[in-house]
């Protein structure tokens, strides 16, 4: 399966990329398990997560840790919002 990952704004400073795709062997993973893969691949994430609270979305919504992630899903790492 393949998931689409975006690192928004300040987060992309710490990953070096704005978006990527992650290929995984199994057909289904929990949200938390996928996050482990992503954090391992982009160690800069831990650095910014220690600095500011990061929002992590699945298909634009805040999921539960055990939510099943499926092929084609979109994961995004966002800094706290700053509208206005």
């Amino acid at each position: 399966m393949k998931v689409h990952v975006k690192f928004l704004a300040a987060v992309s400073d710490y990953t070096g990329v704005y978006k990527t795709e992650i290929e995984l062997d199994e057909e289904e993973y929990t949200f938390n398990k996928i996050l482990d893969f992503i954090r391992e691949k982009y160690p800069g994430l831990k650095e910014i997560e220690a600095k500011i609270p990061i929002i992590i979305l699945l298909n634009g919504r805040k999921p539960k840790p055990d939510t099943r992630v499926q092929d084609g899903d979109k994961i995004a790492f966002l800094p706290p919002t700053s509208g206005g």
Partner: protein
Amino acid sequence: MSEGRIIENDLDLNAVVKEFSKYSKDGSGALLIFVGLVKGLVDDKKVYELEYSAYEPYASEILNKIAVEESRDEGIYDIRIYHKIGSVKVGEPTLYIIISGGSRHDVISKMSKVVERVKKEPYIFKLEKREDGEYWVYGDGRRFRREKR
């Protein structure tokens, strides 16, 4: 009809006033327009510009949700929320909120609530470029310096 979304260009406010005048015949006596501008001075440092970005389509979805939800109250006729992204220079508009209501009391109290929601809810991000470096702005005006990596 109430709506909210991300925009890339300035809004023609004269056209908005003209459009909203249609609500007068139904009893609307107040039109309130809020325009957020880029400040040229923060923490005694000169600001050159702000670079806004958004996580779309979700940022627009949330702006729209705020406009629709807040326009349900009695005395409110229409709410529009437009937030710019991209590079915005000092003195240029970043945010437009337009509220049509029955009276000044209706629109003034509603505006305060809508502005606060727009500051907190949509997935919009701000990089402040100023004389002493670049700063990511987050939450309620907190900042951290962008490091060269």
